[in-house]
């Protein structure tokens, strides 16, 4: 278990002070895939760097399985860092080393015998799907492949926790998806706790169970991903769940309006409107929609308007008959 307790961090430069983190408390349970999301400059990287003490918090404590990481001596801290490894947006591979030697790097630091290290590194390259790239150099690989090597390297010392700072931000959507799948697989098969830093809601949706929303150095909201998707409470959460803005939708002028709330329904938005037209002969106007797929389920809401009272009532009856969908008049 990782407990961040009342972490604060202020950066002072000659001409400014930035309160990067203000009293941040987060608990991450073992085996979890925990997302930390926020806008650029929200303090995400600073927070994740506090976990392995690359950045020392001014106040507060980081406990990993009850051990106060901040109070460790440098040698013990280095051992802890072998258990809490990290992957980065820029991959950060050693460019003058082959992929195999990159994966062997943490083992070399730990003093593992060369033959054993090599064997382990080859297995890990297999795990991340790059068994044929052992002798290639990072510059010869695509971004996605480089991140796979970085993941293999991060796994070399059998960590308990994997920290991912914007690990997919430099990749195209397809590659990003593949890397996230690999991370999920690692989490499931090896039971490694994963902390994912991102500014993209799609990343949280795709792999995280729990999420904390960081806003200007503070935790705006945290909890289960599904809860925050269905009932975002804080402004920061609403901004992320409804990027187009919830309020704007409401100003649309129409007397007969409904808000359809997806609380994990199998049906996505558009087929619902199609069914409404086909089965009931009702035409609904979509004023706005912010639905998100989490796994194969839809969350979010959709604002519809109708021509008259009667078709609105019919629509209510129809929508209420569908599981996991609720309707309210607005």
């Amino acid at each position: 278990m990782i407990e961040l307790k009342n972490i604060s961090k202020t950066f002072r430069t000659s001409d400014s002070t930035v309160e990067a983190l203000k009293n941040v408390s987060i608990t991450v349970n073992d085996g979890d895939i925990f997302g930390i999301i926020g806008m650029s400059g929200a303090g995400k990287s600073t927070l994740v760097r506090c976990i392995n003490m690359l950045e020392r918090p001014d106040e507060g404590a980081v406990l990993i399985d009850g051990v106060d990481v901040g109070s460790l001596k440098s040698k013990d801290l280095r051992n802890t860092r072998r258990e809490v490894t990290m992957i980065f947006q820029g991959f950060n591979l050693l460019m003058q080393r082959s992929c195999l030697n990159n994966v062997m790097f943490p083992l070399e630091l730990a003093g593992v015998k060369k033959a054993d290290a090599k064997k382990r590194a080859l297995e890990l390259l297999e795990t991340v799907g790059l068994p044929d790239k052992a002798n290639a150099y990072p510059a010869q690989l695509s971004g996605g492949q480089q991140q796979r090597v970085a993941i293999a390297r991060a796994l070399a010392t059998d960590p308990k926790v994997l920290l991912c700072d914007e690990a997919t931000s430099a990749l195209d959507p397809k590659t990003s998806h593949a890397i996230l799948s690999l991370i999920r697989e690692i989490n499931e098969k090896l039971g490694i706790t994963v902390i994912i830093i991102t500014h993209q809601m799609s990343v949280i949706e795709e792999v995280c169970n729990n999420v904390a929303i960081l806003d200007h150095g503070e935790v705006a909201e945290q909890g289960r991903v599904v809860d925050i998707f269905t009932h975002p409470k804080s402004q920061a959460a609403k901004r992320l769940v409804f990027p187009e803005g919830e309020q704007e939708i409401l100003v649309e002028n129409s007397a007969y309006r409904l808000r359809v709330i997806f609380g994990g329904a199998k049906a996505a938005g558009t087929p619902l409107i199609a069914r409404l037209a086909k089965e009931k002969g009702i035409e609904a106007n979509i004023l706005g929609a912010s639905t998100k797929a989490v796994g194969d389920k839809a969350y979010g809401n959709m604002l519809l308007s109708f021509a008259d009272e009667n078709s609105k009532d019919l629509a209510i009856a129809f929508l209420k008959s569908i599981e996991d969908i609720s309707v309210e008049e607005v």
Partner: protein
Amino acid sequence: MADFFTSKDWLEAVDIVKTEVPLAIWETLYVTLISTLIALMIGLPLGVLLAVGDKDGIIPLPAPLRHFLNILINLLRSVPFLILIVVVAPLTRLIIGKAFGTAASIVPLVIAAFPFIARLVESSVHEVNPNIIEMAQSTGASPFQIITKVLIPESVPSLISNITIALTTILGYTAMSGAIGGGGLGKLAINYGYYRYKYLVMIITVILLILLVQLFQSIGTKLSVVSDKRLKKK
């Protein structure tokens, strides 16, 4: 033109070149390589120390020590070489036993070269992506491991090209050390061209010096490129 190659001047120059140049080239190479090697032994660790000892480096040095090293290096680098030769003469005498001659020229060369090399090494090490240093720290590397397993190996191509610059610069300085009796092509050029007005000999030796610099430079560039794994074909 044909007249020129049968002229007395030319034949005499060829004669001098034949008898004196092989030894001069040997002396130049020997002095250059030995001086570079010794200067490297001092400059390489010093350059690494300067780079990691930065205010926000991995082993920040105490400010007074850092300032002292920087001022010392700047000072040594700003003294003109010919003056340096004179200034360090007592030290040369102490180490070599005399302040004059081929072996004696190594001392001022080393003293001129090591601060220069330290700066070049410092800049090579600074070129290493700071994110990679952070990766190494997050992997549990000690500062010493970061130096030996990350900073130095990652900057090898840049180090090779910078050491090549140092080598060719030192080669140029050996020509100047001819003034204090250091042997080599420089002495030959000065003796014949400046003191005896045999310009042909001077021109030929200068051309040879240029060729040596070119040779070192192209070998260095080649080695740097070959060693750089970032430049491997996909």
